[in-house]
């Protein structure tokens, strides 16, 4: 298999706006072209869109609007995990030799139909994601003594990191007290513990080692990929204090990249809710089981940006189809040394963890400079 890397990226601001999905996607493509050297429409063999939007034929529409006539153009949908699923598909095209360069564009509207999985009848009347989040939270609190204050540190840290992300939905620091006193949604979940669905788009150019140098002097290689789908329905999660799909996808990704978690300098984790980041830190192996919250508090106290330097989903906002791509762009910029005030000094190896529907499926990517 050929080496595959990320050559270029483009983002729009994450916000609430009235822009249609195709305009959002095109804005991210324009941003990518503006920031790339020597990139022409003719270089792009495949266009992939990742979104939960109901509009059809978007990959072909964006291709036409961008002046690209690709060999293949199609959409990828996997709820919140759509973005990295698009990148994994792009990797497969390039590694196999079917394409040299693939443009992946993720976008979402805040009112998209991917927020609630109506198919999952096992959730009964408790279809909204706040209910599964509360189940994970209570289970973790009971087993490990995690407190609501511990969970508030995730939000405080990620909001503080988001201040230095020009594309973030929130650009405001919140104190632990403000988070703990924000609107209660359930007995163990407050408004500021949650990521905000919003409008936004993100794009990356994935390219083969023999073509990538044309577009960038500092490519970032995709060296590890792991994915796992446990189920579609939330109640098939056997264990509520960990996320099986995260453990299994991380194991595959590390094996492929021949890395361990101790090699990771910077990571983007899927903090749909505060408790998610704590469990993911434990499941990925950054912290022992039950010590994820101690790890987060230490990051906060030392202003260490190693985990979610762009502000995570909680600080940056969560436009479902764009999220996994925006996470990947953050690690791309970190490993290029171009993350400005968010930069983790000397970062050479990074990790992206993106997931869907109460961790029923997950992707882990390992990137290297």
């Amino acid at each position: 298999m050929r080496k595959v890397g990320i050559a270029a990226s483009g983002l729009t601001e994450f916000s609430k706006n009235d822009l249609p999905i195709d305009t959002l996607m095109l804005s991210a493509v324009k941003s990518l072209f503006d920031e790339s050297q020597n990139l022409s429409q003719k270089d792009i063999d495949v266009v992939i869109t990742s979104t939960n939007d109901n509009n059809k034929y978007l990959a072909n529409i964006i291709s036409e609007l961008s002046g690209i006539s690709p060999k293949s153009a199609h959409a990828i949908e996997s709820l919140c995990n759509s973005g990295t699923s698009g990148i994994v598909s792009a990797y497969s095209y390039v590694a196999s030799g079917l394409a040299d360069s693939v443009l992946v564009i993720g976008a979402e509207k805040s009112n998209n139909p991917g927020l609630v999985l109506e198919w999952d009848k096992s959730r009964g009347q408790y279809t909204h994601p706040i209910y599964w989040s509360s189940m994970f939270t209570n289970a973790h609190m009971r087993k490990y003594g995690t407190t609501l204050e511990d969970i508030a540190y995730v939000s405080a840290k990620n909001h503080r990191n988001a201040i230095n992300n020009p594309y973030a939905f929130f650009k405001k620091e919140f104190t632990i007290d403000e988070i703990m006193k924000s609107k209660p949604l359930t007995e163990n979940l407050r408004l500021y513990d949650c990521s905000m669905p919003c409008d936004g788009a993100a794009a990356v150019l994935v390219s083969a080692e023999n073509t990538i140098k044309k577009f960038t002097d500092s490519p970032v290689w995709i060296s590890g990929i792991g994915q796992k789908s446990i189920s579609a329905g939330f109640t098939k999660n056997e264990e509520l204090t960990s996320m099986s799909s995260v453990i299994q996808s991380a194991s595959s990704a590390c094996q492929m990249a021949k890395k361990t978690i101790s090699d990771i300098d910077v990571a983007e984790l899927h903090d749909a809710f505060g408790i998610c980041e704590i469990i993911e830190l434990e499941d990925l192996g950054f912290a022992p089981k039950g010590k994820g919250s101690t790890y987060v508090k230490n990051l906060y106290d030392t202003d260490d940006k190693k985990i979610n330097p762009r502000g995570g989903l909680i600080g940056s906002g969560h436009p479902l189809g764009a999220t996994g791509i925006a996470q990947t762009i953050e690690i791309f910029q970190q490993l290029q040394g171009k993350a400005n005030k968010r930069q983790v000094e000397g970062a050479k190896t990074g990790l992206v963890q993106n997931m869907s529907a109460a961790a029923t499926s997950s992707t882990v990517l390992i990137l290297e400079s």
Partner: protein
Amino acid sequence: MNKFEQELKNNNFVCTFCTHCNKLVWPISDFCNQCFGMAIWKKVNRTAKLIEFSRKDGEIFCISEFEDGLRIMGNIINAPNLQIGQSLNLVKCDYENGHAVFILEPIY
């Protein structure tokens, strides 16, 4: 409306069942997810085990586990105290606004 939903409306909790594998097929499906044999309908035993719970506006919501590991989210009533793993009884089920409704009560 399918049979699952219709039966819920009549306060009956039914699920698809594979006679070949001798197990419930959940979520409901035309075919068994193990052998792909035709599934039939079977009444589910209404006793469940409490897996996890939390509250919203004083209302208790939970994950409860029925026979064959069938798990659903439901609402618990008349519960002054609750312990994980304790027995629950499905007192009422329904189907409203496109969602299954399960109301459970602790068995003390």
